[in-house]
Each structure stands twice: as structure tokens, then as C-alpha cells.
């Protein structure tokens, strides 16, 4: 799967639209820096240390491409242990030093699953989401889940950055592509989900929670799963409000809403609704399930595995690993080790260990 990236605005270090908006401060990045500090020299300032190590990273990566074949181990040992902000510096410095785009060089040198995981990881989180979302709009219905995942597990700010990256890269809005490539009930649900800019406060209106739980129950009992109000509630309410509503739903009506949405296991729309609910309320459980199904599937679903690992490595991989261990009695590391091989396996394992460094 070739990823054709147009990154010249990154390479030039220009302030191109959207790609350089705030990155989350990653505490593990600070830990990486201090490790390098301790290991290398003692009395340099952090700033100089940071510049030196970025230059070194670029040299090493360049070396990894030199000659016949590629030193994948070296690529993993560098890129898997850098956070988004550091990778951005590396890309800029690489472009300035060698006049070439790191992503293009990676693209040339690597292949298949390994390539995809490295390339996805090297992308800025917002660009990554934009890329995955765009890919999802071009495929068939099984990719609607990816759109739900991106729209519902990201924070409002992360989703906004993804949309800005989408404008910059694809010269269209995410909403227009999702609307154009979906139809019927899926469009009714997905367009509002990607279009929303949810309120992120913790305030909850209990009266509203009760009345909206009642509406949901009513519509579900009538099998009116695509009803405007069901979609309105899931697509526009804040996550805190939705949590309160669904808690009330369970208290009042006895079942988890997803249990009531399981009436027809083959119905794809119901599956997407359930995914929406899960992503909004228990993302770590949602991701655990995606990983479990990807690994247990005959032949492994590398697409899903790569996607979850690269998009959650810096976010909540630790919690997802705990969920995985709880649910499957083996660690995620063990499961990935058994199910994948070679450089692909090494990169995945390095990434899921990322947050623990």
C-alpha cells in the first residue's frame, strides 16, 4: 500500500495551514529526551541537546537507507521511540539537510505492512487522521467504522485539527467527502458525527438526560434506529451528557443501550450505531475489541492493527493494553508477537511499548 505524501510545505518549514497547530505535550517525549541526556553528555543545555539529537537522528535515518536494502532495525529504533513533536523536527531537519522529504525516502525504501506502519507513525496525528478518514470515504461500508472511530474517539480539538489537515491535503472538506460518498442512513449518521464540534465541559443536565434516555428507548423499541432524535442525541450532545443519558437509560430500562441495539447481528447500521456509542463512552473497550478481532481473524487484519496502534500509541495505549490483558488473559505484546512477524512485528511492539518508556 503506497502512501503518496505531498509534504513540501512541511519540508520547507513554512507555516502551511493547519499542520503546525498545537501538538499535545507528551510526557513520554520528555522522558525520551532525559534518557538521551543521561546516556550521552551531562553538562549541555537541553536546547542544544535537542538540536544535536535531531541531527543525529537524521544522519542515522539517512544511513539506514544507504546502499543495498534498508536497515529496518535502525529505522524502528529511532522512529518508534520519538513522539509527534520530535518526528516533526526530524522531518524538517532531514528536508533542510538532504533536500528530500523523509516520507518519500521511507516510501521508496520500505514495503507493505511495515511501510504502512512506519509512514502512518511518521505523519503528524492530525494528518494521520485526515489520511485515514479520506481512505475510509473511498472504500465500501466496512470503512464507515473508521469514520465513526475518528469522529468519536478524538477530542473536539483533535478532530478540528484533522479537518484542517484534510483541507490542506485534499483541497476539500472532510464533511463534503463523507456526505458525497455515503447515502441513506449511514449518511444521516456520519455527516453530523464528523461535522460536530462538541462542547467539552463536564456539566450535565439530569432532567435532559432522563428525557433523552426515554426518547432513545422509545425509538429503539419501535425499531426506528435511524430516527432523527437518536442521531441528534448521539451526534450533538457532549460526551459527559451522553454518558449521563446512557447511565440513566440502563438504570431506568434495565439494559445497556448496546444490548438493545443488538437485535439483528447482521444489520450494519446497528453495528455502526453500537460502535458510535462505544467510541463515545468507552473508547478503550472499543479499541480492545478492534485489536482482538484483528488479531484473532484468520490471516490478521493488519489494516486495523496498524491503525489502532499508530493512532493510540501516544494517547491511551497503556489503558488499552490493560483492557486487552483483562479480556484475553494474554498481554497485547504476546498476542502481536504470535500473530505478526519481521519488521512489522518489531515496529508494532516498539510502538505499544512507547508510552512506558
Amino acid at each position, binding site marked *: 500500500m503506497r502512501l503518496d505524501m505531498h509534504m513540501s510545505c512541511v519540508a520547507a518549514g513554512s507555516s502551511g495551514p493547519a499542520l503546525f497547530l498545537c501538538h499535545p505535550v507528551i510526557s513520554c517525549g520528555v522522558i525520551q529526551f532525559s534518557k538521551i541526556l543521561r546516556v550521552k553528555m551531562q553538562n549541555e543545555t537541553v536546547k542544544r541537546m535537542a538540536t544535536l539529537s535531531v541531527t543525529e537522528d537524521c544522519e542515522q535515518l539517512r544511513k539506514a537507507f544507504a546502499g543495498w536494502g534498508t536497515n529496518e532495525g535502525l529505522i524502528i529504533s529511532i522512529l518508534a521511540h520519538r513522539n509527534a513533536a520530535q518526528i516533526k523536527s526530524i522531518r524538517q531537519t532531514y528536508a533542510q539537510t538532504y533536500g528530500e522529504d523523509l516520507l518519500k525516502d521511507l516510501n521508496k525504501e520500505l514495503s507493505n505492512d511495515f511501510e504502512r506502519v512506519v509512514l502512518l507513525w511518521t505523519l503528524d496525528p492530525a494528518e494521520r487522521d485526515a489520511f485515514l478518514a479520506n481512505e475510509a470515504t473511498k472504500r465500501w461500508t466496512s470503512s464507515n467504522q473508521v469514520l465513526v472511530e475518528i469522529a468519536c474517539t478524538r477530542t473536539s480539538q483533535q478532530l478540528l485539527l484533522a479537518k484542517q489537515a484534510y483541507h490542506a491535503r485534499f483541497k476539500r*472538506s472532510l464533511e463534503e467527502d463523507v456526505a458525497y460518498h455515503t447515502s441513506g442512513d449511514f449518511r444521516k449518521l456520519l455527516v453530523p458525527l464528523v461535522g460536530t464540534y462538541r462542547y467539552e465541559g463536564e456539566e450535565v443536565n439530569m432532567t435532559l438526560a432522563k428525557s433523552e434516555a426515554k426518547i432513545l428507548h422509545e425509538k429503539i423499541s419501535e425499531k426506528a434506529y435511524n430516527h432523527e432524535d437518536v442521531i441528534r442525541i448521539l451526534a450533538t450532545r457532549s460526551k459527559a451528557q451522553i454518558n449521563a443519558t446512557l447511565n440513566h437509560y440502563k438504570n431506568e430500562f434495565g439494559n445497556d443501550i448496546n444490548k438493545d441495539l443488538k437485535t439483528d447481528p447482521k444489520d450494519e447500521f446497528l453495528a455502526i450505531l453500537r460502535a458510535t456509542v462505544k467510541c463515545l463512552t468507552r473508547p478503550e473497550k472499543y479499541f480492545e475489541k478492534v485489536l482482538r478481532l484483528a488479531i484473532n481473524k484468520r490471516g490478521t487484519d493488519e489494516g486495523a492493527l496498524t491503525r489502532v496502534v499508530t493512532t493510540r500509541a501516544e494517547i491511551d495505549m497503556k489503558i488499552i493494553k490493560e483492557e486487552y490483558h483483562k479480556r484475553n488473559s494474554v498481554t497485547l505484546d504476546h498476542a502481536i508477537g504470535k500473530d505478526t512477524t519481521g519488521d512489522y512485528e518489531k515496529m508494532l511492539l516498539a510502538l505499544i511499548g512507547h508510552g512506558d518508556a
Partner: protein
Amino acid sequence: MALSHEFQALTKSFSGFGVDEKSMISILGKWHQDDRKSYRKGCPQFFTQDDRLFEKWDDRHVAFLKHEFLRLKNAVVLWTMHPWERDARLMKEALVKGPQAYAVIIEVASTRSSEQLLGARRAYHSLFDHSIEEDVAYHINDSCRKLLVGLVSSYRYEGPKVNEEIAKSEAKTLFAAIKNADKKNPIEDEEVVRILTTRSKPHLKAIFKHYKEINGKNIDEDLDDELSLDETMQCLCTPQTYFSKVLGAAFQNDADEHAKEALTRVIVTRADDDMKEIKEEYQKKYGVSLSKKIEDAVNGNYKDFLLTLIARGE
């Protein structure tokens, strides 16, 4: 003894847009009790003779005066406000007022740039602890809900790139939906809503152009019956046309408070953006300059404030 021209001047200062503070001070301020009594007796449109032998202010006119006195204050407060807070408050107010005011939501959501609308949505979070889309979806239950939710949620691509083939095909889609209006209300047509709420403005302008080529008429002429759609299309493609129309309506003799408020709203919200184009469009449409119209129809400090706003940058 008060003169009849003073009566006239004072009456004028109590009518129309805004109040003429100077006349009130120079005329009314100096009148004695008897002069004021004569005025009350001589002004049946404002005062009625009560059975208990006094001239009573007409309640409705007092309410009218309240609006007129407040015009300057409202304009000043709105003008000083951050544009994001301004747009958030305008949309909230419109939502609370009900269907008659929904056009304001369309106006704000469609004439602002993507970044301006995003800012307004952020401000809305801070001011009202909800997202604008959740409030619009919750409070609006009629046929325009889908359109309005889509419009306030939009985050349009702002670059110039347009796919002409798709624009052409979407112009045909819109044409078909409009022709089918008697069977299905176009405002509830999925494709119409999709196109109007997600496509970029340059793309919509291309659709406008292709529509005219296919059909011979401008799409907003064909949409005349579908008020919200017509306004949406105008706001998205030719906002100056829309704004000059709204201004024209504000000056009508039978304009209600809602129409008159638009004078403040349009001038304050567009003074930094496309006021020049709006003035040109107004002149073209009504044959008189906007400044002259304001000079004639508006009173006092409110008039001066508006004229100052629209004269900036000249």
C-alpha cells in the same frame, strides 16, 4: 408658546429609526407644563384622551420608543464585542425568538468564513455551555432543521479548487429537486441539504453559474418560493445581494421591529468585511446611496454612529 413647527420636529424625533436627541433637548427640554399639555392634546397618534380627564401616552408607542432609544446602545455594545461573541449571541437570540428569526441563523452561518464561524462556535461553548449544533437540533423541529444544523456545523474548505464536472452534475441535481418541489419539499431533500451545507463557496458559485447555463434562470429566482433555501443560496454565493435586500426591508414603512433590528445587525457585522460591496449593491438596487437613505430615515446619535461605521475606509 410652542410653535407648530416645534410640534412637528418633536414628533419626527419620536418616530422612525432612533431618536433625535438634540431636538428633544432643545425643544422638549425648554417647554413649560402648558406647552407639553398642548403637545399632548395636539398629538392624537401618541396620546389619547382618557375618561378620567388626562391625556394618556399610547402604550404601544412607549414600547416603540423604548426600542428606538435603545438602538444606539445596542449598536455600540454589538460593535465593541468580539466578532465571535457577537455571532454566538446573535444565533442564540435568533434561536430563542423562534421561526421568524431563523433567517439570522442562516445569515450568520453562511456569510462568515470558516474560521469566523468556528470562532463563533467556540464562543458559543463558553457563553452557553452547549454546542450551537446541539441547541439548533434540539429547539428546531420543523422542516428547516436539517438545513440549519448542517449550516451551523459546516467547516468548509476555503481554497479555490473546484471540480467543474461535479459542480455541473450538482447543478442538475438541484434543478431536479426544485422541479420536484410539489412532491417533496426541496429543503428536506437530502441531496440539496448535502450540497448546500458541505460544499465550498467557490464550488457553490460554480454550481450557480452552471445552473444558469442549464436553466436560463438564476437559482435564487427559481427558489423564490422556498424562502430559506433562496436566502441560503444568496448568503453563500452573493452575500451583498442578500444584505442589501435586508437593509431595504428595514427601511420599509411597514417594517416590524425584527426587520428594523437588521439595520444595526447588518451594518455592525459587515462594517469590517464587505460593506463597500453592500453599499454598491444597495445603490444599484434602490437608486439611492445607503448613506443618503440613513441620513433621511434615521435620527440622532444612532444615525451618526451608523454613518460613521459605513464611511470608514473611504
